[in-house]
């Protein structure tokens, strides 16, 4: 039954190859035309590394965050830290910088003609409110400054007496200044962050500002950096992958068609996949730089099996076309199964709740499918050109018997013959140790650590964290459930307590809410008497202070309370810390707030840092489900292909082994799973399984011919085993290309995936044959 099924499938692939060779010109023209269309389409790929690119539109947390922005305004900003704000010359230069930024960013964009710039807050122009002799003085901080250092020293004391300016416009020691650029989000403009960042850089890169040591951070800076890295990394990975794979292909085949066929097939698949992105309305997000390299190695890996077989047959004296048809008959079906399992592995990530991850999974699966289509339709087109038969002197020149690889595979086979029991015992011990290691593994991530140390934005974030307070922030939205509820003294007093509680945490740098504004104005109308830095006891008292605040130019209120005074916002600036730490903090502060408000209001946590942590939670939750899904589908496919439950299940062991060992080592070594490495298992199982398919199907074919396990194993190792080595080397080197990334997460991913692929080869070379021989998996010998 098995033989019947497999031979039928082999015939199908042989016929396809015959059909393609017959209509070679037709297929060449079609592929050429499609390539032109794909090139045109790729020009319309959009970059998007904003938060919106990561979340599904119907995600509850994301929806709440959007409504939060609707209530309190856009939270897009660029924050610049600079040196010595209270040196007279610096104060003047910063003023000039602010005006230049104001002019450059005051450009309307989008259909609604909205301005990029909302406002700039900086020491030279900040409005200062001060109570003195029954008078409330509202003035620009530098309004009466005569330019002298002495006068500036007086202003220095004034600024540092106001808590609201500390860790915002000036550091607590007065040595660093801060300039805040608040921006409007323009929905209908593509690559919004890049446009703003470009205008911003035009100003800050001017030489006259160099002495200020300007350090910019903020969501816009980060997104623009991500976008820049995305393009750069994609080009870099692609070039290095091309060089590496071309070199290996040359070493391997030393013939033109052997290089051109796999290389062009893989590149056409990449081109078509990229061309589909705009048509499917999928944007180029931070995961996508992996895609071209991934498809390149998978595509070339697949082609190698066909070409190795073809060269073997052709060199054995077979007619060119016959050799092509026979190659497809022998390895076409395993190639299909390999592509299918890889697509399933990558596709299993699709169940992720994150848009960027889901879209990467869609494109990766489609891409892998396209690589197979190209192996099927394009590789025969290249192979069929050339001399019809081999020259006489090369005939019957069997390469497998003479070269180093052949010799190595022979030794390997003999080792497996004699030591199959030992191999299985060692494998069992390693599995046990790995499972133990896996229990120690945990998921944690610091998004900033995704960048390598060489990335300036990473250094800048840590610098701002150290000097001016936290670069991360979470927001508590306190919903009083009634209009004007935010003016109730008992609610504001609870918010005061929540702020005090938050500030006890080591990771909290600053808290800010409407309470700070109310207390500050209250103190000012009482001639700056510190005893009045408190919340008035009545709603009217609070309302009147707020009216005064608004009328004297205060615009912060719009960011801290909604229009009907129903919901108020408590912003907590935190250090950039690992997700588990801030998650624990956000849970703790949320619990405290709920207890303290005691039913007076509802509390909800949101903000960029909160959503970043949610993303990690989603990935870690769904990757386990994704892996299980991939595992089940691939196991069912194995059972179906081998027409045996026992064979299908047992042959999954060499596939699982590399993943278990990698995760086990990570657990023992204390390496955490982060945003990218979480996807490792799903991607690795899809790729690791390919070699097992080729090995096991060929082993079974050879066993059916010879009815002798040892002979079948030797023959399989000398044919498929050789191709497995080539594909593994190409895959490993393809993934190792990522060590050249400036993103640490990609470096880790590249190393771990390469290591897993290496283990997969080891498992297929040792464990799979040992298991097949020892358990006599394909039936009795003759």
């Amino acid at each position, binding site marked *: 039954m098995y033989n019947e099924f497999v031979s039928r499938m082999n015939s199908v692939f042989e016929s396809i190859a015959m059909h393609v060779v017959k209509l070679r010109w037709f297929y060449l023209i079609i592929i050429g035309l499609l390539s032109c269309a794909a090139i045109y389409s790729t020009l319309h790929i959009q970059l998007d590394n904003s938060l919106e690119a990561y979340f599904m539109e119907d995600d509850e947390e994301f929806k709440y965050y959007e409504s939060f922005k*609707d209530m309190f305004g856009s939270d897009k900003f660029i924050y610049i830290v600079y040196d010595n704000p209270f040196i007279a010359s610096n104060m003047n230069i910063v003023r000039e910088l602010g005006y230049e930024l104001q*002019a450059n960013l*005051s450009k*309307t964009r989008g259909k609604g*003609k*909205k*301005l990029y710039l909302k406002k700039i807050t900086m020491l030279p122009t900040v*409005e200062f409110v001060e*109570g003195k002799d*029954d*008078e*409330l*003085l*509202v*003035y620009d901080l530098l*309004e009466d400054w005569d330019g002298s250092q002495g006068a500036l020293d007086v202003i220095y004391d004034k600024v540092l007496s106001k808590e609201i300016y500390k860790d915002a416009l000036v550091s607590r020691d007065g040595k660093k200044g801060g300039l805040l650029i608040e921006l409007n989000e323009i929905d209908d403009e593509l690559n919004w962050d890049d446009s703003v960042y470009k205008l911003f850089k035009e100003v800050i890169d001017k030489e006259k500002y160099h002495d200020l040591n300007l350090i910019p951070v903020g969501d816009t800076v980060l997104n623009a950096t991500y976008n820049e890295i995305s393009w750069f990394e994609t080009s870099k990975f692609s070039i290095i992958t091309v060089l590496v794979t071309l070199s290996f292909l040359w070493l391997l085949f030393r013939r033109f068609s052997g290089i051109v066929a796999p290389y062009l097939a893989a590149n056409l698949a990449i081109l078509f996949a990229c061309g589909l992105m705009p048509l499917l309305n999928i944007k180029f997000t931070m995961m996508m730089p992996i895609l071209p390299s991934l498809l390149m190695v998978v595509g070339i890996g697949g082609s190698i099996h066909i070409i190795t077989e073809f060269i073997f047959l052709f060199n054995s004296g077979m007619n060119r076309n016959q050799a092509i048809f026979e190659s497809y008959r022998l390895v076409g079906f395993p190639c299909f199964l390999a592509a299918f399992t890889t697509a399933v592995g990558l596709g299993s990530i699709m169940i992720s709740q994150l848009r960027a991850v889901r879209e990467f999974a869609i494109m990766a699966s489609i891409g892998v499918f396209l690589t197979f289509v190209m192996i099927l339709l394009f590789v025969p087109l290249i192979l069929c050109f050339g001399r019809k038969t081999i020259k006489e002197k090369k005939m019957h020149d069997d390469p497998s018997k003479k070269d180093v690889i052949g010799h190595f595979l022979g030794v390997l086979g003999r080792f497996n013959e004699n030591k199959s029991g030992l191999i299985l015992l060692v494998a069992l011990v390693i599995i046990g140790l790995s499972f133990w290691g896996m229990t120690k593994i945990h998921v944690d991530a610091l998004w900033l650590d995704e960048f390598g140390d060489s990335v300036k934005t990473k250094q800048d974030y840590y610098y701002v964290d150290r000097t001016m307070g936290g670069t991360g922030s979470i927001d508590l939205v306190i919903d009083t459930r009634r209009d*004007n509820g935010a*003016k109730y003294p008992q609610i504001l007093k609870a918010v005061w307590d929540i702020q005090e509680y938050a500030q006890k945490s080591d990771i909290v740098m600053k808290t800010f809410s409407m309470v700070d504004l109310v207390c500050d104005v209250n103190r000012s*109308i*009482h001639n700056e008497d510190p005893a009045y830095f408190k919340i*008035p006891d*009545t*709603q*009217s*008292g*609070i*309302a*009147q*202070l707020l*009216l*005064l605040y*608004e*009328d*004297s*130019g205060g615009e912060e209120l719009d960011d801290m309370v909604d*229009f*009907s005074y129903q919901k108020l916002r408590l912003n907590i600036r935190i250090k950039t810390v690992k997700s588990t730490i801030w998650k624990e903090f956000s849970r703790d502060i949320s619990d405290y707030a709920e207890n303290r408000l005691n039913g007076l209001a509802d509390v909800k946590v949101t903000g960029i840092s909160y959503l970043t942590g949610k993303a990690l939670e989603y990935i870690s939750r769904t990757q386990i489900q994704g892996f299980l899904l991939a595992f089940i589908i691939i196991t069912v496919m194995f059972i179906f292909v081998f027409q045996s439950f026992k064979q299908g299940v047992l042959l999954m062991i060499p596939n699982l082994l590399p993943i278990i060992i990698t995760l086990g080592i990570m657990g023992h070594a204390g390496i955490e799973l982060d945003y990218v490495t979480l996807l490792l298992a799903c991607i690795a199982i899809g790729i690791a399984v390919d070699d097992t398919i080729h090995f096991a199907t060929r082993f079974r074919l050879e066993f059916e011919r010879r009815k002798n396990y040892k002979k079948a194993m030797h023959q399989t190792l000398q044919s498929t085993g050789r191709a497995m080595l080539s594909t593994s080397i190409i895959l490993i080197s393809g993934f190792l290309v990522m060590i050249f990334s400036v993103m640490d997460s990609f470096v880790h991913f590249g190393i771990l995936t390469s290591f897993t692929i290496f283990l997969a080869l080891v498992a297929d070379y040792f464990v799979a044959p040992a298991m097949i021989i020892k358990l006599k998996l394909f039936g009795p010998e003759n």
Partner: protein
Amino acid sequence: MKKIVIMTFCLIFLAFNVWALTGLEIIEKMDSVDISDDSKSQLYMKIHKKGKIRERRIISFIKKYGDDEKLIMKFLSPADIKGTMYLLWHYAEIYKNADIWIFFPESNLVRKISAAKRKNRFMGSDFTHEDIEKREVDYDEHKFISEEVIDNILCYKVESVPTKDGNRASQYGKWVTWVRKDYFLPIKIHFYDKNFQHIKILECSDYEKVQDIWTIKKMIMRDLRKDSYTELIIEGISYNLGLKDSLFDRSNLKR
């Protein structure tokens, strides 16, 4: 005969140009519509944003002192700011900021806010202090643009650009006013910032002759940047009441 016809047309054309008003004349005529010495009005302010409304009722007294103006306002509602009073002294002098005193009934305190800025929002509305201040005609250069029909009303369209001196005293780069030809009151004003981006629109309606003075009884200020607007409705107004100077004294606030 042909020459006579041409000359007649030329004379008529010249005559029309001589009789046509300049931008400055139109704005001066608009400025002189309110000939009252003082007034008392009940104002109803509705600030709209994102489908929600903040309502405020105010009673206001204004008295003119030459080109200067004093204004006192008392909040009648909402309850939490009831009794809060504003006293504003607006000065014609170009660089002199308004003086503002506020009385807080809850703490029984009067505080002067010095140097309040013209660009600051007035009572949290879409009007700024500059919008409610009287602005001297000669702060700006006025240019007649055209005649246009707005809502079936014939209007002069005049563009005003602050002079070099006037520029410092304004948050705007320019504004365009459509002045009704019949009452010489504005029907619409478009405000532009210093980068000449269109930022605000004032719409006027409900014109009524009160004690021989044509009065606008409803204004809507729309802030295009904030997606909000404020309605200011004059519910009752009377002119020339002979208001005493002491009403506009700081000491009157606590009374």
